[in-house]
């Protein structure tokens, strides 16, 4: 078109056309790869969900492909980052959703990113084929201790990178907490099996039922260190935190002693190892995490009538998704706040009858981001129970190490920048290092460690992250999409949940609802730019903008890290050096693109990708 011809003539004499791929007459695309901090910073700032994802998932990418109905591609985009989309699509802690731009004040509710992940996994075709880009074999051998999320993630990446990997798993099957910690009504096992299988099929040997340790019939770690080029510890946090009781400072653990009290973690582990568990009519659960909620909901399913959860602070401050809390309440489980256990009431037969709490007031914030609770003297009271489940946290176990390894003062293992322990060739990752966290963090860490371990094995860094910038020839969103309400996850009727223990509560979004939800995504990775050289400052774009997203600017601040800061707006004609799209406000509706008289607005897709060096 005329104006494009002109643009070539008057704007970009110096333009490098070498990268253009021609398709007939039309230029299809020109892709630019950038490591400029401003470009990388742009993605980091403007795609908040991806920035918040420990596994660095390309969220706009996979949501966009759902809109296009390319579920398989969407699934792959996920798998590239987090290995187990079908699993995480159900039980991920969703650090991405609280930061979703759609949830910012005035923008409505965040996109249900997690549920869409699940949709991609379930809606992809039967014949979907996963794809992997395999490196040539390196003949390096790596042993991984622990087949949980972190171990599996690391194993996957290391095998892709060409190393031969062996996982040593204590339990009968790989999966760790995913398989033995999370109840089936939240995570059906079929999906888990397939995805673990996919993650480990590129030449990963999984040795199950093998315990690494010092006892006989256990394999000592030192053997592994001799047999393998590198060993990676990913044994997570498999021990429950003991319940501290202010008024019963005995050295033996009362919970362990009482016949009708148990630690939630053990309760769930046993259950999923196949033991039959029973609970009384009144079940008191102490603790505020996923484990506590799971215990309570399992207890309801095991027939307990009155199940209650007791927490130190209040609902607003516990690290659990609102949906989970709501479902627990629907199942008739009240959450009682501001109370700390101080003692157990035990009758003459040594059976626990009640738990004494002290009333709390809220204190400051811990470094961990958790809320302090400060007991109020003299405010003690008692709650009766038939069964007591305690789930106040988990800790690592490292007594199985038969080589001298440096520990920190919490007796967690100490690792360096390169994730290597004080022992050469011995690496550690996941919860085993960081303490109990989330599945996605474990996977994220596992993958980071894999890359570091690879560079150590190969003696050089083999990959780095760059921004892939691809022109988009037309706006792919419509303003209408912003008015779509967040699609609610359909759930099984409460009555039906208790009949069959394993009925999955969240039923998943069907294709239509997934499409509707996917459309809501702003696709923050689309970058609208105005070619200031060709702009006539006519403000036609501002006129049609649905929001305050295009601005007359004097300039822009640059942060210390070289990324862009705030736009410096102006209403003074003489100062208006440029008209610029404020990508914070921009909801990628494309209205401006359509009206620009000089066609000076361009759209690019900005994605962080991994490139070989």
């Amino acid at each position, binding site marked *: 078109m005329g104006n494009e011809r002109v643009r*070539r003539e008057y704007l970009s004499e110096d333009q490098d056309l070498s990268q253009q791929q021609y398709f007939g007459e039309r230029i299809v*695309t020109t892709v630019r790869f950038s490591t400029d901090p401003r470009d990388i910073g742009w993605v980091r700032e403007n795609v908040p969900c991806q920035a918040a994802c420990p596994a660095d998932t390309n969220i706009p990418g996979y949501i966009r492909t759902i809109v296009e109905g390319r579920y398989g591609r969407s699934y792959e985009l996920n798998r590239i980052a987090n290995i187990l989309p079908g699993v995480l699509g159900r039980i991920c802690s969703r650090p991405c959703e609280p930061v979703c731009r759609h949830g910012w004040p005035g923008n409505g509710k965040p996109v249900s990113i997690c549920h869409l992940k699940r949709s991609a996994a379930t809606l992809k075709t039967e014949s979907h084929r996963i794809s992997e880009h395999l490196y040539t074999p390196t003949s390096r051998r790596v042993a991984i201790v622990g087949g949980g999320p972190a171990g599996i993630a690391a194993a996957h990446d290391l095998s892709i990178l060409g190393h031969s990997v062996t996982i040593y798993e204590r339990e009968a099957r790989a999966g760790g907490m995913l398989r033995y910690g999370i109840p089936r009504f939240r995570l059906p096992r079929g999906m888990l099996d397939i995805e673990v299988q996919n993650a480990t099929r590129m030449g990963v040997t999984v040795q199950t039922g093998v315990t690494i340790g010092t006892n006989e019939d256990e394999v000592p770690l030192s053997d592994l260190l001799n047999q393998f080029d590198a060993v990676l510890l990913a044994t997570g946090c498999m021990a429950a935190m003991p319940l501290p009781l202010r008024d019963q400072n005995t050295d033996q653990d009362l919970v362990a002693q009482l016949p009708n009290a148990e630690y939630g973690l053990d309760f769930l582990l046993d259950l999923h190892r196949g033991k039959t568990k029973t609970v009384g009519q009144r079940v008191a659960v102490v603790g505020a995490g996923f484990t506590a909620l799971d215990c309570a909901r399992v207890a309801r399913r095991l027939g307990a009538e009155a199940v209650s959860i007791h927490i130190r602070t209040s609902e607003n401050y516990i690290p659990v998704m609102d949906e989970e809390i709501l479902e627990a309440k629907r199942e008739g489980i009240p959450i009682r706040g501001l109370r700390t256990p101080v003692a157990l009431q035990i009758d003459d037969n040594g059976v626990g009858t009640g738990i004494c709490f002290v009333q709390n007031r809220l204190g400051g914030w811990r470094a961990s981001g958790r809320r302090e609770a400060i007991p109020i003297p003299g405010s003690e009271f008692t709650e009766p129970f038939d069964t007591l489940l305690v789930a106040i946290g988990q800790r690592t176990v490292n007594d199985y190490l038969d080589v001298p390894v440096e520990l920190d003062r919490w007796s967690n293992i100490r690792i360096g920048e390169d994730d290597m322990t004080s022992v050469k060739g011995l690496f550690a990752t996941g919860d085993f290092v960081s303490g109990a966290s989330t599945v996605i963090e474990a996977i994220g860490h596992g993958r980071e460690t894999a890359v570091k371990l690879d560079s150590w094995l190969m003696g050089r860094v083999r990959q780095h992250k760059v921004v892939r910038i691809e022109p988009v020839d037309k706006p792919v969103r419509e303003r209408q999409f912003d008015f779509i309400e967040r699609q609610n996850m359909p759930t099984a009727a409460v009555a039906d949940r208790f009949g069959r223990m394993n009925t999955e509560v969240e039923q998943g979004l069907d294709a239509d609802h997934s499409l509707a939800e996917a459309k809501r995504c702003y696709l923050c990775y689309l970058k609208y730019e105005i070619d200031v050289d060709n702009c006539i400052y*006519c403000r*036609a774009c501002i006129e049609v903008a649905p929001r305050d997203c295009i601005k007359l600017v004097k300039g822009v601040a640059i942060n210390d890290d070289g990324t862009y800061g705030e736009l410096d707006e102006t209403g003074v004609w003489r100062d*208006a050096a440029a008209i610029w799209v404020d990508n914070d406000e921009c909801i990628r509706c494309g209205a401006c693109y359509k009206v620009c008289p000089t066609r000076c607005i361009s759209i690019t897709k900005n994605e962080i990708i991994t490139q070989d060096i």
Partner: protein
Amino acid sequence: MIPQQPVYLEDKVDEIRQSGRLDYRSQALPTWCPGCGYYSVTEGLANALNDLQAPKENTVVVSGIGCASRFPFFMDTYGFHTLHGRALPVATGIKVANEKLTVVAIGGDGDGFAIGGGHIPHTARRNVDITYILFDNGIYGLTKGQVSPTSAIGFTTPTSPFANRDAPLNPLLMLLSYGASWVGQAYAGWSHHLADLIRQALEHRGFSYLHVLSPCVTFDKTDRTYQNLDLAVRELDTDHDSSDLALAMQAATDTSTPALGLYYTSQRETLGQALDQVALRAGAAAESASLG
């Protein structure tokens, strides 16, 4: 989609501020409809004046009535907002009074060819050393969209509800025949090209007439839109000889695919020079008289 070299805002902004072109702008934001071609002209004129380093205080922008009437208010130069169609004679007066000034008259097609039509031939004939930028959107903007002298046949407006039957003027042909010594045509959608021509027009000594094609984004959604003009306009043939009047007139007759660029330019005595000559002759006559 034409690939872009990476644009980094702060670099670009510095470049623009240092260029100095913003200095020619007013404080107040223009009040034309968003998307109006006048923005392109404003930018173009600012850039051209800046390229020529024309001192702001020696520049006067004169307008008549119409959407252009506010033009001077959006330039940080001397300006004169006169009456409907009377911009050119006022500009002539200013120029005659002070030859050092750069005088730019600006108006629309209604202002210039309808009520003011009588003034153009004479300003061109006298070759007053001013630049006349005529903004041709083929419609009356300020009175909300009636036909104008350059509206196409068949153009339907409130005052031509059954389609306009009057043939449009051919301004370029008119101006060429009136003897304008510099005639060019630009298009608001080609902002850089426009700026380039304005600069040439300002540099020309004599009456320079720049015809600027533009849509009226508010009252003409069908006929002369950016989309249509984008497709219609082309550049003057590369071998065009701008000293050849016949060739220029030939080129001017193509109104279906208007060619953009410098049609014709020639150097001849300007009004200022003529007045100087008259003064010289009068002086000489007085001298010879004293010798005799």
